[in-house]
């Protein structure tokens, strides 16, 4: 009974405090220079995948948008917010569809469980190539159960399918719950940051990492943009 009475008060307190003290870092990731030309993928060896694409898709090593926007950049708090050890319980999925990885970069918390799903009419083998975590390699024929996995150490892990050598993606395993992957024109947002000094790191699979220091003083949105120097090779 008592708990029930206190619940609204507790909720109000929670909402208020998060509104009052939660800052946000948001911004845009862009590039300067000339990014590598992305090549069309020849999927003729896998007709069930080829027919899913009206026009041949191109490689996704560098995905750009209007106004020099750079997508698929993992932006995360690399210091200043000690990891509370809370592993997100939300389901995240890495889908193989049309012989492509969707999303191209899957960001996750250390120890967070994720599903690998095969939506294709062909077998894939999921072969992540970690250096710090443990390597495994599993076959996933069409119509089989999702593969459930997790990684216990932070690392950017290249993922490939040996059967379809053009398939290429990344797992970003992070020891923080404050992360985002730039999308839809290079946009990213890191909400719910309590006041403090933070180091924000931006990682791109080809152009490396950049960092910026940001101070959050209260309920505010700080803009922090990142610009990568693109190289054509």
């Amino acid at each position, binding site marked *: 009974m008592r708990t029930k009475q206190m619940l609204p008060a507790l909720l109000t307190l929670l909402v208020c405090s998060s509104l009052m003290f939660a800052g946000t870092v948001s911004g845009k990731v862009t590039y300067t220079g000339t990014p590598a030309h992305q090549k069309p993928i020849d999927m003729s060896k896998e007709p069930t995948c080829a027919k899913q694409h009206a026009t041949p898709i191109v490689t996704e090593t560098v995905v750009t948008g209007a106004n020099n926007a750079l997508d698929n950049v993992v932006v995360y708090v690399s210091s200043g917010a000690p990891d509370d050890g809370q592993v997100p319980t939300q389901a995240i999925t890495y889908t193989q569809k049309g012989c492509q990885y969707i999303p191209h970069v899957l960001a996750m918390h250390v120890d967070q469980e994720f599903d690998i799903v095969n939506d294709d009419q062909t077998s894939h083998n999921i*072969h992540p190539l970690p250096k710090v975590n443990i390597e495994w390699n*599993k*076959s996933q024929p069409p119509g*089989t*159960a999702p*593969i459930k996995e997790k990684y216990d150490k932070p690392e950017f892990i290249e993922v490939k399918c*040996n*059967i379809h*050598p053009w398939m290429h993606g990344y797992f970003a395993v992070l020891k923080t719950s404050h992360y985002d992957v730039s999308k839809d024109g290079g946009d990213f947002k890191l909400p719910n940051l309590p006041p403090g000094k933070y180091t924000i790191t931006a990682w791109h699979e080809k152009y490396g990492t950049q960092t910026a220091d940001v101070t959050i003083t209260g309920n505010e949105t700080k803009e922090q943009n990142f610009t990568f120097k693109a190289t054509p090779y």
Partner: protein
Amino acid sequence: MRFISAILFIAILGFVVVAGFTPRAFAQDEPVVGPKPPVVVKPMESHIGNLTGHAAAAKSDYRRYCAGCHGDYGDANGENAVWLDPKPRDFTIATFKCRSTLTGTLPTDEDLFNTIGRGLDNSNMPIWNTFSKQQRADLVAYIKIFSPRWEHEKAGTPITIPAEPAVTIESISHGQALFAKLECWKCHGTHGEGDGPSASTLTDSKDNPIRPYNFSAGGNDSRFKCGSTNQDIYKIFMTGVDGTPMPSFADVIQPNDAWDLVHFLRTLQVHRHGKENEVLAAAHGVIPPYVEKKTSDLAPAAPADNKSTGGGQ
């Protein structure tokens, strides 16, 4: 005189302070010169049946027989390594090809013991049958000093292999259907000659080109990389060959179906005299098309809303 000794005192004091506080900063900038530090032989052990292997006992054997390829530091950088293809195993990452345990787990001591005794076909790893069993057990313990995984992790649990059913033309036929359905042919080729559509693009986990196994090569005594018995073939495709493109099928093939696949794979070894090829010859060399009898060959897909299932065997 007093003045001079005061200056001398300050100078000495200054030197001591500077020398005491700066060497770390200097040391970081200095290139590392001279030989690498000696290998620390941790007191690792191995247990194979009644045998107990001790790392310290294998020190000279490893230096004399293994380090030439695998390197003094177990990092696959021995002086012969540049000339070898496939490359020697890198013990520092503790990823092993021949296991009875699931993909991503450490092999059992017995797996490693057998690998040393058997050698690796189609590679430069010879059959070390000149070693005594104790020497092999000691070497198994020794290679554990190179990766911290052996201190924090236990070896995986060996997979359960049911008794092998009789070879029949039906089991061969079902195995052939699985070979097609699981798309083994994408790399190994329709006739198992290692010439599937993806074969030319394969690389191992260190980006070195690698060939899929050619079943048809070799004579009556042809061996696989991880053994020569039917049980060995069963283990190879169920647990996968870690560090290579060959994945594990443990989650997707039912144990009895796996035996049917083994029987079919044996018929791809066309020069081998065995039970499977005898059964095939009795059927005039023709594998009849498989007629579906079982409800499913593959593990069923988990319902989308049920998180507790899936990934099962």
